[in-house]
């Protein structure tokens, strides 16, 4: 006996897997793919060459988040598919049990099955992962514009981590299956797949809750004003919409179908009779699956479209924030040190033999103002942009510098100002107020166009207004009047921007050392930026975003595909019996086909339509959030969203056609006899 049993169980396990290939092969493929993706991500994170990349810390952090998401996702998803598999096989296992296999024998058989699947998935997944990780790494380097060819690297820690993680997942699923079998009677197993399920109840409260959640989430998404609130509200809105989607798919769908059934004229029509009752019956089991598809599709689309838009819009963002090669920002201090600064900067330029172009310089102050009824009011009460209502960011400049920058020739009186704003609102006064004084300026005119030098990304985040006063003295007097204690909370800044005739390395070198020999009294802070380092940071970040977006997008897409496939298969088996009965009762072959088609189409379109609505509604809030990350090009984001949507629809459609075919095959298996 012992000699026989040694090869008996592995053989039985193998034949079981092959016999159930319709459900097992996709499962194994998913496992392999999951292992591969996970390993590649981990291997890139642990790659010894990572540290050579500028901004590697940022990228590593992003990869870590992606890995974390992938771990959670793998656990949930593999567990979910496993529970589907075991449900499908209940009958077969019950039969083994009745034919005399004890439960421990079945356990042994399942152990071998899991072992085989585990070994195949892990070895194939790791092999493919190691093979493609270099490719993936090169792709990432390309995205972040880092063109150094790095060696082949197989981080052992990643291999071990992957083995442990997925080994643990397999062990847990096996334990779950064993427990499930242990506590069920053979007769239950035998009838496992075909228990006459009760008709789902109408859950009014859950339906209303679902509507409420979605409505609330949508309301957030549609009414949000500032990008900062968008950021904080986004996750609440996401949770609300996810909860609402699940509630509506599970309870709302049933409520709607029951309502349809109550309408006797509608219900008792050949077209509707079988589909409404069929949908009603299957919604109970499949609503969650449909909601999963919907949520996953939405996530795939949002992640891919926004990271793609960020990446594509990156060059614009850089140009907007860094109009020149080098930008200096210096606080001129209490006693205006502008002349000394100019001298020192010119000195540094000359000493390094640098030629400059497009040299511009101007002073400004940034203050928060309360804006009401067209009046800007500076209140010296420690309010900031974040803690008070109707606060706007205002940048104060002097007229002569403004005219020079923009090539204009506006004139102003002492008590007049010009306001630059993209918004077309009526402005009347600008008031500076402190403990013992108050000064009012009349707003002479409003303009809505300025040179690119002034329009920083700052104005994307807040409603930013530039207020132009008549001269430097007024600017200084305003600064001293809003001064608190010795130091100004809102010091005068002096910005110098210019292009240089240096290559990348020298430019970085120059900008990083420009202040080295400067020591000017009163200057409290000085910073220098250069476009090259900024570009590296941008590429590292947005390239990393896109990479991770695509990674998660592919992972979620795979899950969507598998869920659709399994749904079709399990529904096929259930519907087969139903359609046979209907044919026996007098439904023609073509009528059966028509009914099948209409059901398939509903199941196909329902999640994707809801996904479309979610995407459309989320557009505004995501656009605001992308502003925070420097993307202001709405057209680009629209293009990316539509592009991602189309690509997704094509993949979804292809998958659906393929899986629908296997569904038809199952349903019509014996009907052509």
């Amino acid at each position: 006996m012992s000699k026989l049993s040694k090869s008996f169980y592995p053989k039985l396990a193998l034949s079981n897997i092959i016999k159930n290939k319709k459900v097992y092969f996709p499962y194994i493929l998913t496992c392999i793919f999951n292992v591969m993706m996970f390993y590649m991500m981990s291997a890139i994170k642990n790659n010894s060459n990572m540290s050579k990349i500028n901004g590697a810390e940022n990228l590593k952090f992003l990869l870590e988040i992606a890995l974390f998401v992938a771990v959670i996702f793998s656990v949930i998803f593999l567990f979910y598919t496993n529970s589907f598999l075991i449900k499908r096989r209940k009958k077969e296992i019950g039969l083994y049990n009745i034919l005399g296999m004890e439960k421990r024998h079945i356990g042994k058989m399942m152990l071998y099955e899991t072992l085989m699947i585990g070994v195949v998935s892990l070895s194939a997944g790791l092999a493919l992962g190691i093979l493609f990780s270099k490719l993936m790494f090169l792709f990432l380097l390309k995205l972040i514009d880092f063109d150094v060819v790095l060696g082949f690297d197989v981080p052992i820690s990643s291999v071990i981590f992957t083995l442990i993680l997925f080994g643990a997942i397999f062990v847990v699923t096996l334990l779950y299956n064993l427990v499930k079998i242990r506590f069920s009677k053979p007769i239950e197993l035998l009838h496992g797949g075909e228990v006459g399920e009760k008709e789902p109840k109408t859950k009014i409260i859950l339906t209303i809750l679902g509507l409420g959640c979605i409505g609330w989430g949508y309301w957030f998404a549609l009414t949000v004003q500032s990008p900062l609130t968008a950021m904080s509200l986004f996750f609440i809105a996401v949770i609300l919409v996810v909860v609402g989607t699940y509630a509506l798919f599970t309870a709302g769908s049933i409520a709607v179908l029951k309502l349809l059934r109550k309408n006797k004229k509608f219900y008792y029509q050949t077209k509707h009779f079988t589909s409404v009752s069929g949908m009603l019956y299957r919604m109970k089991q499949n609503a969650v699956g449909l909601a999963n598809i919907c949520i996953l599709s939405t996530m795939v689309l949002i992640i891919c479209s926004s990271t793609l838009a960020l990446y594509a819009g990156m060059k614009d963002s850089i140009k907007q924030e860094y109009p020149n090669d080098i930008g200096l920002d210096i606080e001129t201090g209490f006693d205006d040190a502008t002349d000394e600064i100019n001298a020192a900067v010119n000195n540094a330029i000359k000493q390094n033999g640098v030629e400059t172009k497009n040299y511009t310089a101007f002073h400004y102050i940034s203050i928060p103002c309360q804006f009401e009824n067209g009046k800007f009011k500076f209140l010296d009460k420690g309010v900031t942009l974040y803690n008070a209502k109707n606060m706007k960011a205002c940048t104060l400049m002097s007229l002569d510098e403004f005219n020079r920058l923009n090539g204009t020739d506006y004139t102003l009186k002492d008590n007049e100002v010009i306001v630059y704003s993209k918004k077309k609102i009526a402005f009347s006064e600008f008031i500076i107020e402190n403990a013992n004084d108050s000064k009012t300026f009349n707003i002479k005119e409003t303009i809505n166009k300025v040179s690119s030098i002034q329009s920083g990304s700052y104005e994307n985040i807040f409603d930013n207004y530039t207020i132009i006063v008549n001269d430097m003295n007024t600017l200084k007097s305003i600064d001293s009047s809003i001064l608190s204690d010795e130091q100004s909370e809102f010091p005068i800044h002096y910005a110098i921007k210019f292009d240089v005739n240096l290559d990348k390395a020298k430019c970085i070198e120059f900008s990083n050392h420009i202040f080295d020999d400067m020591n000017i009294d009163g200057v409290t802070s000085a910073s220098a930026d250069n476009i090259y380092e900024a570009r590296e940071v941008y590429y590292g970040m947005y390239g990393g975003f896109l990479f991770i977006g695509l990674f998660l997008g592919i992972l979620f897409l795979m899950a969507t595909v598998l869920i659709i496939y399994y749904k079709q298969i399990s529904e096929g088996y259930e519907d087969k019996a139903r359609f046979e009965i209907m044919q026996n009762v007098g439904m023609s072959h073509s009528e059966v086909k028509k009914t099948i088609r209409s059901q398939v189409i509903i199941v196909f379109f329902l999640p994707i339509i809801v996904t479309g609505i979610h995407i459309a509604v989320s557009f505004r809030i995501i656009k605001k959030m992308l502003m925070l990350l420097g993307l202001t090009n709405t057209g680009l984001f629209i293009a990316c969203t539509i592009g991602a949507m189309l690509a997704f629809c094509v993949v979804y459609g292809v998958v659906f056609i393929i899986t629908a075919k296997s569904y038809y095959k199952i349903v019509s298996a014996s009907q052509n006899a």
Partner: protein
Amino acid sequence: MECKPKLWQPIPFFYILSLVITNNEKADAGVMEENMSLLEVKNLKKIYTTRLGSNQVQALSNVNFSVEEGEYVAIMGESGSGKTTLLNILASLDKPTSGEILLNGKSTVTIKEKELSAFRRANLGFVFQDFNLLDTFSLKDNIFLPLVLAGMKYEEMEKKLAPIALKLGIDDIMTKYPYEVSGGQKQRAAVARALITTPKLILADEPTGALDSKSTEQLLELFTKINNEGQTILMVTHSVKAASSAKRVLFIKDGEVFHQIYRASMKDEEMYQKISNTLTVLATGGEQVE
């Protein structure tokens, strides 16, 4: 039985039959041509070919019989005798290899695929062993299914249902679902579904097969009742009890109608006895080898 086969010699099967069966009509249905029958089956033959074409199994070799309007006919035979094949062909779920079936003078073999379902809906009612009720429908909707498929208006359907449900004693469980009622109730609902289209012929396939004895009795009484009201019934069954409620019993063996018994004025018990005897002969006759 009085028939005692001599051990040294296989006794010809027909000889035994002639000893047992007093009525002594051989399977000669299909000869009455002067009066058109409701259902006529002529020279029906069905050969199954296995998928690779290597094996041929003859399920029906040459079946001939007819059913008159208002008759209640049972078809008996062992497993593998071709009963189910015959029923499937009669139900036009399957096509014969050769031969003809006339329902009301119209051939069901040559009917077009497109018209087939409508034809079946209009002319045939089905009762199955495992009820074939859909769990997705309440009993009422299950019964309505053929009418809905035929495109009838809801008000008319309701009008048709009321008397039938009352007659079958299921009017109080109409809103229940199949998994909520007993086997007997399910089968009565299935009968209601068969009756609601007022078919010319009801085909019943082992209708008592999944029922307990009490439900069986109720169902057979019901069959007799609706037959007395003029409904033609053709039932395929294993059960002697079920067959003994019929007015005529056909026996099938090896793909042919082998024999038949008319009830005439016999009581159920006599009928039962006679069917038993015939079956015994059929069974022993087939194994007559020593």
